[in-house]
């Protein structure tokens, strides 16, 4: 089943009209896929993820998420899609600093109606990622690697159709990076979680079912593992 479909997506920022941040990108991601995009800084990786999450709108082209065209959606419809279908992990650690780790993980589940034992599921995720002992700590009290794992748990809390992760290993030592990448790998292989991961870290090349390279807004497939 197709989860994400890009068709001739081009993005030009108004403030820099000479530059195509994304240049005619076409990409399809199936359920259970693990796509890894690498590219230099400024090549357009974050722009691609933000368009996938409905945070940015493309200048031209079509984008479909889980069969729904993201163009011309109201704020409420887009918010709902983000909440139910997307697990977005942005570049950098963006959390609510006044909430504990577990509360941050639960947060997406209270923004819209979600049934079930949310706290229980959050705890299971934290345990799975080895940070259950930090559940009641505040974000400022945990390490960068631990916080990244919490962000992955948060992205998973609403059982999204796809996880979009923007440089999830940046600013981490290689051990923490490996730990994070293994988590993604396991999620994909054991639980069939669909992943779109972007990074400039060549270490990530070993992960993912398909690897693409982003170069000045142009996407090229590197290899099929």
């Amino acid at each position: 089943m197709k989860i994400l479909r890009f068709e001739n997506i081009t993005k030009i920022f108004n403030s820099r009209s000479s530059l195509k941040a994304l240049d005619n990108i076409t990409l399809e991601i199936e359920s259970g896929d693990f796509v890894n995009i690498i590219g230099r800084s400024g090549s357009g990786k974050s722009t691609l993820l933000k368009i996938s999450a409905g945070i940015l709108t493309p200048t031209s082209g079509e984008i479909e998420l889980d069969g729904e065209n993201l163009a011309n959606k109201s704020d409420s419809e887009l918010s709902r899609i983000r909440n139910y279908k997307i697990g977005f992990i942005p570049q950098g650690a963006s959390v609510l600093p006044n909430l504990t780790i577990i509360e941050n993980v639960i947060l997406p589940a209270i923004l819209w109606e979600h049934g079930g034992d949310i706290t229980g599921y959050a705890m299971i995720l934290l345990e799975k990622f080895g940070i259950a002992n930090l559940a009641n700590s505040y974000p400022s009290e945990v390490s960068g690697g631990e916080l990244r794992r919490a962000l992955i748990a948060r992205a998973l809390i609403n059982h999204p159709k796809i996880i979009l992760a923007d440089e999830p290993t940046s600013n981490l030592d290689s051990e923490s990076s490996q730990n994070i990448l293994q988590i993604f790998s396991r999620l994909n292989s054991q639980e069939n979680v669909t992943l779109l991961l972007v990074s400039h870290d060549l270490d990530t090349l070993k992960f993912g079912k398909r690897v693409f390279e982003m170069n000045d807004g142009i996407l090229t497939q590197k290899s099929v593992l």
Partner: protein
Amino acid sequence: MLSISKIAKRNIQRKPLRSFCLILTVMLLSSFVFIGSVLNVSLSDGAVSLANRLGADVMIVPSSYRFSQVEGIILTGKPSSFYLPDNALEEVQKLDLGIEKISPQTFLASFKMSCCSYPVQLIGIDYDSDFIIKHWLGKILSQKLREGELIIGNNIASDVGEYLRFFGQDLKVAGKLEKTGMAFDSSVFVDRATIEKLAYESERISAKRLHDSSSRNSVIMLKLKSGHDPEAAAMEINRVLGSRGIQAIFSKSFVNNMSQSLVFVSRAITLSLAVIWFLAVIIIGLLFALSISERRLEMGTLRYLGATRAKLTRIMLSEVLMISSYGAILGIFLGALVIPVINSRVIEALRLPFLLSSIQFMISAAIISGAFAILTGMLAALIPVLRAGRVEINDMLSEV
């Protein structure tokens, strides 16, 4: 379990200094509005119902006294001793004014007394004809006021059965008046014979004659039969007896005159409330604008996690609502603590006619002041909150 109100609560708890400033601002606003409105209404109650409370339609005083002096004596109680010419009572009674009740009073200023921080006005009344003081007695004395007994105003720190000493005489407290909001509150009432004796003692102690005439009447209180116009009666008295050193004042004129100074006080209160409100709006608005620009990334986080613009606004506003509510409630408590102090100390010091509003009025004033302060807080924060909600998610996520 996490909820929107819990998020708001955490934001308040984890930013104690900012929260403290905001709560303090709202608290000051709500307490000032509460105190100010009670003060305003109590003062205007004190003045507007004055004529009614005085119970007399016309008052006759010596013509050597200017209006403002009389007002000062009757309403705000600057103790003094003054006397009408001989036979004033008889002369007035002779006129065809439609008098229903008439009763003279004798004023005698005490020296500074131990019971009170200020000199007390001694007033000799004719208990039988009196229709002013009896009205304020919670319970009419079983017998008439006897020689050597006194009735005390509400502010006098003493109780029935106790003794007070004036000019070397020990007088027994036989009754205590309810609060009148007039000079009567700081006055002491005795019968005619006792006031004669006290006046004699006063003259003896100070070795100074109070008065040449044999009359000991200072004020004559008149109540007219219904259908008779107090203003016309006062004019008639002034026309016939003006040259005899007598002057009549109709009580309603006090209210008019009194309200002039009250209008000033009330304007001052209203003006300061307006200034405080304006400052509160600015402070709350600025603090929120600051805190919001500091929290752009947080807001962006909420947005990409699926919060709609409306939800984001609700989260921010519930924080404002909570802070404003804390402030408003604290402000009402502060007001409830301060109002009695104003009532007992400040008003006495200023000698303004003041009748503390009913408890029902104060409760509704408290609720309205609180609601007003909460609304102000919400309103002040609304502009920065709404503006923040309109920012694009991507701009929230980019470093500022």
